């Protein structure tokens, strides 16, 4: 394997910090960030299932933490991350077919994922808290 950690003396192409943010950049970056966040969400899923498999005491501890204020803020965050990743994932699947690749379409689709993820998060938590 080649050593790629050697110091770089040649000129490098500009990176993220020199560009003005666009919706398409945000949706792309968020896809990876929410994917990473959801990876820590699998630890939460594991915790919940282990708690349920371990007995009533561990389950009630898990539920009391999950329904505390901090617990709910974290769960709302995971809900949004899930829906944002889901919406931008669908955007990826659509674009894989060659559709929606024009600049204007891809920008509109990016906005659609934001509206969708916040909308679905609000819908789910309205159902949880008011239903």
């Amino acid at each position, binding site marked *: *394997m080649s*050593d*790629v*950690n050697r110091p770089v003396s040649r000129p490098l192409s500009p990176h993220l910090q020199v560009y003005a943010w666009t919706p398409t950049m945000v949706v792309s970056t968020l896809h*990876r960030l929410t*994917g*990473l966040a*959801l*990876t820590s969400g*699998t*630890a939460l*899923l*594991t915790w919940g*299932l*282990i708690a*349920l*498999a371990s*007995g*009533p005491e561990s*389950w*009630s501890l898990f*539920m009391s933490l999950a*329904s505390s204020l901090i617990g709910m803020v974290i769960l709302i965050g995971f*809900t949004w991350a*899930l829906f944002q990743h*889901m919406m931008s*994932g*669908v955007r*990826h*699947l659509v674009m*894989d077919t060659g559709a929606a690749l024009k600049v204007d379409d891809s920008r509109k689709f990016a906005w659609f994922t934001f509206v969708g993820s916040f909308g679905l998060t609000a819908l*789910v938590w309205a*159902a*949880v808290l008011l*239903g």
Partner: protein
Amino acid sequence: MSLKTPLGHVRGLGSAKSGTHHWWLQRVTAIGMLLLMIWFVVSLIGLRGASFEEATAWISQPLVSVIMLVLIGTAFYHMRLGIQVVIEDYLHGALRIAGIVALNFGTALLSAACLFSVLKIAFGA
């Protein structure tokens, strides 16, 4: 000795010798996750504030147990494929190999814990 041309040996495989296998499974598991997570979120809304008895009764239903097992398998496979790409993008050399080994260990441990828990609840132990 093969009669295939040198080009025929490598066509569609790329430098990693696996072609689009990783890419394709990422998409297949993505479609699976889309369906499974809609079911999961709707189910969790119904289970809000569930007692121990209610939650175990829900998972114990054969259909729910099976879908949960499929969900766990699909979710951890999809996660592993995605994190592998992130590791390959940002880590290099020995660190990359260590990262992917750690990813495989972590995925195996967490998914085994989830699968075992569902089976334990389902079989009512």
